[in-house]
């Protein structure tokens, strides 16, 4: 499903439908401290608290790690360095709505009928993410 094409739900039945379609899909949930949680969406409520199952935590490299990597990498001269995010398994988590900065839903490109699959592959994967520093 192309979520970009969906209208923002306004009425309650629409909203519930929208949330229902997301159930059991893999979400990437960003939090205020810069982490990302990747897990299967199980439950939400009016405060946007999210329950995710089989969750992995992804953490961007710390500043020290970035500097270290930058020092060794020629690319860094151009102000860009590619690093892995560190990840670990957490299992079942609740992400309180007040800490959520971003919610993304994953779809298989093969199941999208439009030309979205041609999108540039700058999407983060589950284990790698490009981090730009300036």
């Amino acid at each position: 499903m192309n979520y970009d094409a969906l209208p923002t739900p306004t009425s309650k039945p629409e909203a519930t439908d929208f949330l229902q379609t997301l159930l059991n899909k893999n979400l990437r949930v960003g939090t205020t401290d810069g982490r990302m949680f990747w897990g299967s969406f199980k439950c939400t409520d009016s405060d946007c608290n999210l329950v995710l199952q089989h969750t992995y935590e992804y953490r961007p490299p710390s500043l020290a790690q970035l500097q270290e990597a930058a020092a060794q990498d020629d690319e860094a001269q151009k102000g860009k360095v590619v690093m892995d995010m560190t990840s670990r398994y957490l299992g079942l988590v609740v992400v309180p709505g007040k800490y959520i900065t971003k919610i993304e839903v994953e779809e298989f490109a093969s199941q999208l009928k439009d030309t979205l699959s041609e999108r540039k592959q700058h999407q983060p994967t589950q284990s790698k993410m490009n981090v730009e520093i300036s």
Partner: protein
Amino acid sequence: MGGNNNDGIVAFDVTKKFRAAAGTLELGELVKDGFFSLFESVGALEIMDPKMDSGCLAPGESLDEDYDVGRGLSPEEVIGIIDQLLCLEMAWYQGYPLSQTLLTNVYIDRMLEPEPMTLEEADFIRDNLKGDQRNDDPMHAVLRSYCLGLIKCCWYINDRIKYEHYYEEEDFVTNTYHRSLLDNFDVDEINNEIMAARKLVHSIRHRITDELAQALGFRLELRTAFLRAIELSVMRSNPESLSLPWTQMKAVWEAIYNSRHLGQSVPEAFSTKIQRRLASTMPPRPIVKLSTEETYKHFKKLFVDGINVLNVLNYHDSQSLLQNFVMTFQSQKPQPLVYIRTLLQSFLFKDMIILGKLSIRHVLDDDLSLVVLPASKLLDPANDLVEAPHHPRYALAHQMELFRQRAAQSYLDIFRAFCQNRCRIRRTLCHSIQDWETVQVDAEEIDQLLQIQIDERPLVYPPTEDTEGIEPTFSLPLSSWAYLYKLRLMEWIVQLGFELEIYAPDELGGMYWYLSELARSRARLVDRISFFTKHRAASQQENENTSAQEAAFTRSRHYLYQTSLDAAITWEMADALLNLYAALGRLGLVVAPPRPYSTDEMRYDVRMKPFGAIGLPELPSWEEYRAATDRRQKETGRLLEDARLSLEQAQRGLEVMGRLTEKESFSVGCFERWLGGVKGQMRAVERAGVVVEVVKRKLQEKGEDKKGKELGLRVEVGKAVEGEHEWWVVPMVEEIEVA
């Protein structure tokens, strides 16, 4: 995790829509997956809650360790770090998870993460590898090789424990949080590293002083010996050679403890922050800190147990092995660590070969011969050689094999059960008795087939002058054997209940009564077995009896004597305590707490539940139990007098027991521990005697009608007093001023 590459997955940002949609929900309304229950979500980790989310950082806090592993270390600091690691290592052996113990160390963390592919990479300073300038700080090399040895030890121990029966999180936590504990490195390579470090320390001893060099050397030696001990333990061969590294560790441990003052602690090298990078659903937990003294004590015990457990390999007879070696070893206080218990299990059962050299049949036949069938043709190995199916010996071999197949597992399960922690032993035995109940029934069928094959003549038992009208009975050896085990298991269940403080003070008398009943049943059974064995011995003597057969009969006689003596001591002591508690209850010195929501009868049913399903001996009814425990027909003075007499009998029995030799008491290889148990019982009997005398005297002084405090006595009932046998809970009595 799902598809690991970019291809084929597209992510849409739905933040706005999601928030808008969630905003339309009522307070408390949920959108959830139908298969997901809120009950499950109770166990969810709440992100950003510092108490639950180990990844949550305080504002401005960095995930990185501030600690610089590359900084130079003094020898004192290395000793300090190693000694701290020893404390954590012991905490892990005791059952705390690695995340709260060894994996809180920054050096170990850096060595293991990212996972090293070569041994050179297994270093906390990895930059060195890139530039060709190997780290030449000798103290780094020492600490690294120590850690290599330590981690490899942990890997082995974790692996061995997982292989045997244990209770995860109850006994031990095997979780390594996705860290590989040098799984793929050869122990020889690691040994070489440690040896190199030992040489290095030796070569710089002038620079760092002899004292410090020695202290470091001892610590490295401990690791070499530990790895050696673990490697050797799979051999299960002769205990003398296996015990060498353990003895070495025991000696070097003293030296390590005595040089602990040289160390300088480096608390910064340990941090719970590392937990944030471990694959764990656990909230952050503090580092477990054992004191140096405790660590010293536990390691010392570990090494002593490590040496002692090897003695199990010296098999002498089946009874020494089970009831004495395994039971006394396991009843030590504190109980041996789970690793030692794992060793015991692997010695006993690994690959279904008992102690690395005996078949299960060997041990089982040995036991049958000892208990019920000395020098019997039922156990004659020659039976197996007969191939003609119509030959009676062929039938014997066949039936006996059926029996062995039926009984072997139940028999081995007793050993296995006794290798667990104390609570689990009792719990497992409660299940085992059901199993033995059916073993006994099946055995009786086989007995009946066998008695025809060997043309056994039934005898009148119990023997009387006037045999008229009394049906003679058969010896039923196999079912007698099974019944004996069942009775012993039942006694152990009751006795472990005392040890584990399961019974309330006002229940103790009743449980001792039941124990006494069980012990009497055992004595009666043993008497019957002895009768038939004696008879068979006499009739076989008429034919020519070889010396081996004589010896088998003698051994069996010794065993039956020892077990009936033990049964007699048990019931006398139990009777004494029953009478004493009945008297104390009546005098208001042991008072039952108010229990408004149940009746005595219902509680009896629940308490006796494990025994309820047993047909023989049948569980006494509530009325019988009540009559037997409150002993209403006897006056209090009489109860105390009965208790005194029983204690005298028990005392006499124990004196005889204490004079038995190692072989007569069936405690070969564990005689000291066994004798310790007898002495513990003696001490319990002695003190019980004193208690009875005190109560008697007060009763005479103050008069029969006085109750509780008026008697000038205070009674405390808890668990067995230290030094006394833990199966005998003798009350503490204190004389007080009457107000």
